[in-house]
């Protein structure tokens, strides 16, 4: 089997340090209001096997604003419904002339699988519980907008880490950028072996400990639809791990609050935190566009 095509974005681990820095710099240069037509005459297939609001729309807007044509293929209303395999769907999109494929899939490793079989860049827009590298990059981009540098910063990632591709990619990327990462949640959602994911990781079961000294607080939704046998009592969870204004005071005064969305107000965080002055949740969504512009420009060799 082949190596993925140059420009593919499959996971943070597949990027070297230079590529990470390059992507973040490029994202900073991207202006969604005055985009350059870097992708004119390019065709980008958006292959979405799972629901998505933020990721799909921002990839689509990023692509179109740089002049690319996009086609959206979802699992309903396509031959996927008739039982076409993922590989055959990939071959089909290549055959109709796609220059790159952006894929979201419920199975971990699916983007890598098609990337190994196609000669065009494949961009992972989220695969199962595995990775969501464009989200991690836009989060890093957001952090850098609010902090001078990554070095020495402490981030607390709180909530359902087990089921979260966002958390996995964030751990890899933020650790690589020199941040200290504290994972916080109950053992069902933050297993002990999670520390082996990347260097500079540690686990605490106490939110107070996670917050103390943190510069960045990243909250995650409890993915109840993925729990599959794991039992979580939401009342207990909220009592121990919900982000409230009172708890937020434990963090550094200039700490920022992040959340990849979708947020469930009143569960993992209160409305006051969502709408409070330290929240950069809307900013993250906003930063999705320039970050994905950079990812697409790199994918198609226009950067």
């Amino acid at each position, binding site marked *: 089997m082949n190596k993925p095509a140059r420009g593919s974005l499959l996971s943070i681990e597949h990027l070297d340090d230079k590529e990470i820095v390059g992507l973040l710099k490029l994202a900073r240069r991207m202006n969604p209001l005055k985009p350059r037509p870097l992708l004119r005459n390019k065709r980008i297939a958006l292959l979405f096997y799972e629901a998505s609001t933020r990721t799909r729309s921002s990839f689509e807007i990023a692509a179109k604003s740089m002049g690319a044509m996009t086609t959206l293929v979802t699992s309903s209303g396509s031959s996927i419904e008739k039982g076409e395999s993922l590989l055959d769907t990939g071959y089909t999109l290549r055959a109709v002339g796609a220059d790159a494929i952006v894929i979201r899939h419920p199975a*971990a490793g699916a983007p890598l699988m098609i990337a190994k079989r196609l000669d065009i860049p494949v961009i992972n827009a989220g695969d199962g519980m595995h990775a969501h590298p464009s989200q991690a990059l836009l989060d890093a981009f957001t952090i850098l907008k609010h902090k001078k540098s990554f070095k020495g910063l402490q981030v607390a990632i709180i909530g359902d880490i*087990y089921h979260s591709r966002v958390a996995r990619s964030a751990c890899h990327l933020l650790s690589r950028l020199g941040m200290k990462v504290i994972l916080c949640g109950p053992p069902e959602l933050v297993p002990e072996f999670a520390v082996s994911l990347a260097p500079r990781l540690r686990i605490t079961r106490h939110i107070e400990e996670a917050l103390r000294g943190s510069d960045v607080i990243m909250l995650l939704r409890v993915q109840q639809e993925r729990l599959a046998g794991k039992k979580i009592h939401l009342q207990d969870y909220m009592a121990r791990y919900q982000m409230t204004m009172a708890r937020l005071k434990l963090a550094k005064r200039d700490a920022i609050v992040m959340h990849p969305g979708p947020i469930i107000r009143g569960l993992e965080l209160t409305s006051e935190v969502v709408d409070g002055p330290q929240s950069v949740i809307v900013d993250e969504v906003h930063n999705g566009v320039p970050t994905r512009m950079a990812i697409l420009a790199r994918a198609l060799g226009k950067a």
Partner: protein
Amino acid sequence: MANDKSKPASLLIKGGHLIDPAAKINAPMDILLRDGRVAEVEPPNKIRGGADERFDARGLIVAPGFIDLHVHLREPGQNYKETVATGTAAAAAGGFTSVCTMPNTAPVVDSADWVAWLRHPERGGVVNVFPIAAATRSSRGAALTDFIALQRAGAVAVTDDGKPILEDDIMRAALKLGAELNLPVVQHAEDTRVTEGCSMHEGPTSFRLGLRGMTAAAEASIVERDVNLAQQIRESRLHVAHLSTSDALKAVRRGKRGNHHARVTCEVTPHHFTLIDENVGEYDTNFKMNPPLRSATDREAILVALADGTIDAIATDHAPHATHEKEVEFERAAFGVIGLETALAIAITKLHREQKIPLTRIVELFTAGPARVFDFPGRGSLARGNFADVTIFDPKKRWTFETAKSRSLSHNTPFEGWQFTGKVVATIVGGKIVYRAD
């Protein structure tokens, strides 16, 4: 097979070194096979008189024919994956003279008719085929099959392989009836209530890959339960299939100790004593099987148990699947790997050369060990009068496994391109050479 006209009446295997653990022989011996049986076993050059055919075994190990307690030949109903003919050809190439087939076919082998059908010469088996029948109807875990009729038709054990028997009452009833008939109950130990949606072992690697993991406890808890049940039933026979965890081994050790009248046995596969969960790499579906590849600690425990005698047999769990069932998303890919042609080579390379386990013990794990587990009268040893099933191998031959040359219909192996030491040279079933290396 018995009526095959091409079979020579007698075959003299000359100049080889016999390892026959059941007979406690580890010495140069000549062996004369006649009319499908072992006629004479004597020190070099002591056998007088002629033979229709001679086999020059100088420099080679001669052993009783290997017995594989756990293979999937996929018939009836799944002959796009494997057939009795192709699967037994692969078995012969791997040195196996007898294979025990699993009943999770389409339909499930849960009737005497299907057992007889599997054993019929028309299936084209080139080695002995011993069906293991389903323990419950359609392996649904609800109602026991007709053990008496199945045994009479030739079933050597019962199991719901692939689906464990979860209900205590059903398992107890199966062990009880098995005890009366002296029929082993084989259990695929997995608490499927806690493994739904899981595609590998639960640990740092599954976490990194974002895959749901099967815990070691999901295996061990069933083995513990089964050992407890077996110990309450006199003469019961529990065989733990493809054991993969350290904790399950502890339960088996407990089952083997103590003054109970239950017989608890277990098998392990070459992939479980060779590979670990990390080898899944980046979602390589040729490393996806059930039970999954476990932690390094589990593998270490299995290596100890192979050496110290806790483990009764090496079984392949040969599980062929078509390409389209493996070239899919990891979570959707079929569980299982082929293993008949690589088992001995892996055992010699990994257990003998790396772990320094003596060849006599390795041969035991392929012969006397499995023969005891299911009671194969006249097999597992080359005592005079026994069946003329013989495996001849070169313990020093270096070779590379190429899946493309496999005799199996399927090519799903984690060992593509592996370099091994130790290779089967000839396989003899009922006195007839059914495989000879080029």
